[in-house]
């Protein structure tokens, strides 16, 4: 059978990415143009600036990806694009571009949910991974536990009711004076700190709940830092980092474990920016070994936003004939 090649486009936040993926599993060509350096001086992603850069970069990234494999749009079977959730202005650029590209190249268009893309990042790295399995998608915008029954049948078992885990990381990092993006900085300094130096709360909500809440933990850390400052006492940033991180990861591990028990699933796939955190990977691996779970976590570059994961998920939608029409629009808070 002729291989299916999908060109994916991702612009939901600050990465401009285009990729060509074969049969949902094999990356033929991909480019990720990160805007981190541009947004650094603002201490976070500025939506208007991200949107302007996406518009400038998209044609260059598309051309680079095609030329890399000496391919043209004729060699592509479908165009896939993230249509939510994300920053609406940023999404609109990728969406409008992808719609026009697909239309003028006479190819089917496939709108992809960003979180489903994150889940599919694992397909790119682990050929043996197939549904059913459990997935934890944890990033600056999302913290969700999902049950992947089939490739296109995905149910959210729990999600954050306030801040995403990565958001808590960023806010704590900013208060500690770490440069943006703060998550990797906390990861780095936490290695030098004591995990039990400060007893931050582990907010589990109700015992049976698979939802998350991280705003309480974030506030506890910020209050701790402020009260220490008021008392003119010195804080140890690496101890704060390690203690905060351990509290957050305790919750993530406990909820994933609970989801595994509830569903009887023993295969767990992680993804999203926070899945590149070294301590989270370590703790999940320990838990998996102890409990007999099979754990999948792609390397860091497939944890963060990329277009290959969008094309990977789109392949399975393509197989089921789930193509979008030209009315497709961007939805900032797209439900699963």
């Amino acid at each position, binding site marked *: 059978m002729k291989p299916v090649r999908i060109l994916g486009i991702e612009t939901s936040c600050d990465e401009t990415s285009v990729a060509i993926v074969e049969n949902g599993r094999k990356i033929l060509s991909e480019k990720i143009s990160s805007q981190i350096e541009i947004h650094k001086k603002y201490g976070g992603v*500025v939506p208007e600036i991200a949107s*302007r850069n996406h518009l400038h970069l998209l044609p260059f990234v598309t051309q680079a990806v095609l030329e890399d494999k000496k391919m043209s749009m004729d060699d592509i079977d479908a165009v896939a694009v993230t249509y939510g959730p994300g920053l609406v*202005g940023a999404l609109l650029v990728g*969406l*409008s571009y992808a*719609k026009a590209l697909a239309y*003028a190249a006479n190819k089917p268009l496939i709108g992809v949910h960003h979180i489903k893309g994150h889940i599919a990042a694992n397909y790119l790295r682990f050929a043996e991974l197939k549904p059913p399995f459990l997935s934890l998608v944890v990033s600056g915008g999302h913290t969700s536990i999902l049950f992947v029954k089939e490739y296109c049948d995905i149910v959210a078992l729990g999600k954050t009711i306030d801040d995403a885990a990565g958001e808590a990381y960023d806010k704590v990092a900013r208060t500690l004076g770490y440069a943006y993006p703060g998550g990797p900085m906390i990861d780095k300094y936490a290695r030098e700190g004591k995990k039990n130096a400060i007893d931050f709360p582990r907010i589990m909500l109700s015992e049976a709940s698979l939802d998350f809440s991280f705003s309480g933990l974030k506030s506890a850390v910020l209050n701790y830092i402020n009260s220490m400052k008021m008392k003119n006492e010195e804080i140890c940033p690496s101890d704060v980092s390690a203690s905060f991180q351990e509290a957050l990861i305790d919750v993530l591990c406990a909820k994933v474990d609970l989801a595994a028990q509830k569903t009887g699933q023993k295969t767990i796939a992680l993804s999203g920016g926070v899945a590149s955190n070294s301590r989270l990977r370590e703790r999940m691996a320990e838990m998996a070994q102890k409990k007999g779970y099979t754990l999948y976590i792609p390397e860091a570059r497939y944890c963060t936003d990329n277009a290959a994961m969008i094309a990977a998920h789109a392949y399975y939608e393509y197989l089921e004939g789930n193509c979008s029409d030209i009315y497709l*629009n961007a939805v900032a808070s797209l439900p699963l």
Partner: protein
Amino acid sequence: MKILAIDASTIAASAAIMDEDKLHGEIFTDYKLKHSEKLLVMVDSLLKNLRMDIGEIDAFAVCNGPGSFTGLRIALATAKGFAIAQKKPIVTVSTLDCLAHSVYCYDQFICPILDAQRHQVYSALYKREKENLIKILEEGAYDIDAWAQELKKTAGSSKILFLGDATLRYFEHFSQALPEEARLAMASIRMPRACYAASIALEKIKTGEVQDAFTAMPNYIRLPQAEENIKTKD
């Protein structure tokens, strides 16, 4: 030379197909619609009505502002998508030029105004000299009081015809400041129309003012707010 022109600079959106001989077709709507959803639908319906394939289009024209930042990006991203897939050029047309161009056989001043929020309009002042549209005052984001003063100074005893989306909000203001001079354009040309962008694009192609998917960008006039804030701090 067949041109497909698109505009989404304001709350209105339009698409037109034109060549040197005639305007083949145009779709225009002024309705609070989601441009990201509808612009391509308009293009598709126009092509279908004309029994044309997008492959027959020689160049894509697009109004690149000033105007709504999001609207401009939707139109530019759409033009870029077309241009990459079809390997065809893009011609960018100022939204203010597009508006002014719709006024013909009129020897007084023409003043398109677009709502720039913050008590400002994006505007420029034009005059027709024979067939040519001459820009008398440059494009910019102007405070509406200061702009009225500037227009009064420039216009002398001539009339000024106002058009553009900001006429809805500010024509009263300008007609009070310029009671003898201010005139309101008829409704059919008050909003940007893609057919005039196509017509300007045909002229631009003759003089080689052509871009492509890589170089065509919006003319935002303004920096992003966050960048302005940093500049003010410095």
